[in-house]
């Protein structure tokens, strides 16, 4: 191979580029045909809008005040009209209507859900961001530098054993332990979920790197003497990204679920910050008196997590070249 590096490069380099349609375009075409995944995408687009609006309208220009306590108006049903005589004018909900009712303190559930959409979504994304970053780093190192020896063991063995160690903890119990021991804060929850969920990604990336390392364009790039950083980040990471994207999409879904489970056990994001998880967890005490406190956040989580899962599954099919050729 070292004999004629130029020759090796000449052919494969042009290969993938000649295709009339880029792999991404192809995947997008596949994805568009998957109705469930597209429905998921639509829901998520709506959610993104809601989350943006949540941040803006509940914190910066307070149109919907999630924190306003109106004890006389507690546990009002959805769509009930606010009673202007019992509530201070500045505490009246927008439009004078409690769209989704009020909770046991008379707070506007719609405003809280709106605020919670941003918080819940950022917990999902930040946690997955952390987990993907760690996963790519560890998986990439062990896939690319796997053969490098560190004393008596290889990098690959070391990192994969470490991954095994992490997999050997009962994850939820571990999250629970750490979250319970740390001071309660939304950042700690994001970090802990991220730090305990990267193992799948690491294994995926390692597997991709191992097979990519043998492929023509990487061998060619190495033969050309391109710097390793460039080979890894320009050539290998983009090619390994498809399965990571799929598992990240599904990861956001499970992070949102984990947060709600933590809230249920009392270790989630603490009041007054609202997340869908803690609204739901608090709502369970009012399941008979004020079912909307329970069913609204429950249904919201269900729909959003379902959307992430369906989109992830659709992406998996669309990005899998093996399935595509069939």
């Amino acid at each position, binding site marked *: 191979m070292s004999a004629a590096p130029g020759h090796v490069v000449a052919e494969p380099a042009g290969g993938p580029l000649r295709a009339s349609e880029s792999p991404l375009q192809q995947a997008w075409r*596949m994805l568009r*045909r998957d109705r469930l995944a597209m429905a998921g995408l639509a829901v998520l687009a709506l959610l993104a809008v809601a989350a943006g609006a949540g941040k803006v309208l509940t914190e910066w220009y307070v149109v919907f005040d999630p924190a306003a306590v109106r004890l006389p108006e507690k546990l009002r049903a959805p769509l009930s009209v606010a009673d202007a005589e019992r509530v201070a004018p500045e505490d009246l909900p927008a439009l004078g209507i409690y769209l989704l009712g009020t909770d046991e303190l008379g707070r506007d559930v719609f405003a809280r859900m709106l605020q919670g959409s941003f918080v819940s979504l950022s917990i999902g994304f930040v946690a997955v961001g952390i987990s993907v970053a760690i996963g790519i780093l560890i998986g990439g190192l062990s896939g690319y530098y796997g053969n490098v020896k560190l004393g008596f063991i290889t990098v690959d063995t070391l990192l994969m054993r470490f991954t095994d160690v992490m997999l050997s903890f009962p994850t939820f119990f571990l999250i629970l332990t750490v979250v319970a021991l740390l001071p309660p804060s939304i950042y700690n929850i994001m970090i802990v979920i991220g730090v305990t969920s990267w193992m799948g990604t690491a294994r995926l990336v390692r597997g991709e790197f191992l097979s990519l390392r043998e492929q023509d364009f990487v061998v060619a790039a190495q033969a050309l003497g391109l710097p390793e950083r460039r080979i890894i980040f320009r050539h290998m990471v983009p090619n390994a990204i498809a399965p990571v994207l799929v598992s990240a999409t599904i990861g956001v879904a499970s992070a949102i679920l984990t947060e709600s489970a933590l809230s249920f056990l009392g270790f989630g994001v603490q009041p007054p910050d609202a997340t869908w998880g803690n609204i739901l967890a608090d709502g369970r005490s009012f399941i008979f008196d004020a079912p909307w406190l329970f069913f609204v956040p429950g249904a919201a989580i269900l729909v959003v997590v379902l959307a992430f899962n369906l989109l992830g599954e659709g992406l998996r099919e669309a990005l899998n070249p093996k399935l*595509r050729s*069939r």
Partner: protein
Amino acid sequence: MGGAAGALLEVRDLHVSFDTEAGAVPAVRGVDLRVQRGETLAVVGESGCGKSVTALAILRLLDPSGRIERGAVRFDGQDLLGLSEPEMRALRGRRIGMVFQEPMTSLNPVFTVGDQIGEVLAIHRGLGKRERRAEAIRLLEKVGIPAAAERVDQYPHEMSGGMKQRVMIAIAIACEPEVLIADEPTTALDVTVQAQILDLLRALQQEMRMAIVLITHNLGVVAQFAQRVLVMYAGKIVERSDVATLFREPLHPYTRALLRALPSRSAHAERLVSIAGTVPSPLEYPPGCAFCARCPDVLPRCADDEPRLEGVEAGHAVACWLHAGTGAR
């Protein structure tokens, strides 16, 4: 002989297409094929021309996405396409055996070869456990596997490719079928092993008097083995002939190209047939002759007008405008 009544297996105007993401793939577009008892018919053609699909369609083993759109398959007077699934099952493995292209993956990895041979014996010959084992050993010996009594308890992964293919053959002939469809039985094997497998098939054929449909892309194999040949291109038959005539006087430019690509000395040496240009994708077959883009003798009408398979002399037919009408002479 030669009359329609005499044909053991007869395929008429077979059209098969697959539903895919990219649209319907017309894999086979009007294939006619007739096999007499005891004879060997070879089907040759480049990769992707529809040979395997034709074979699978005969046994109704196409993937769920594949559909037989038109045509008839008759075997010993019965219309196979009209049979119920249980009736069809009673034929498969008993009266029509099949050997697949890929010996490495065609055996079930979790059963011993003895069990896999025995299954056929249980289904079609109703043999008990003991008898099955004895018969499996006998069959393994028959297909030339040494130490058959030990091999019978081995798993496929413990065997070489050639041995797996012998096991596949043992399964296919276990019920002494009248027709054996061998789909490139040697393509995946080494050259020396190929010759052994072909010799084995020939010996078995003589012993059992079965008809063989031998699918291959190697004309060298055809010359040694078959009496009659069908040349396929892009889902159609472009030339039909007996072997001697075909080698003496190939008519279709594609057949000629195939023959030129044949290594002249050693007929065993299997080489990838290389003809200039590539086979068109089934999604974009031209309206005219599918070979026209690669044809050295292309005529103006070839691109738009499709030639039909026409007899030029007894037992020799070709689908090519160069020879159209010569039969009427």
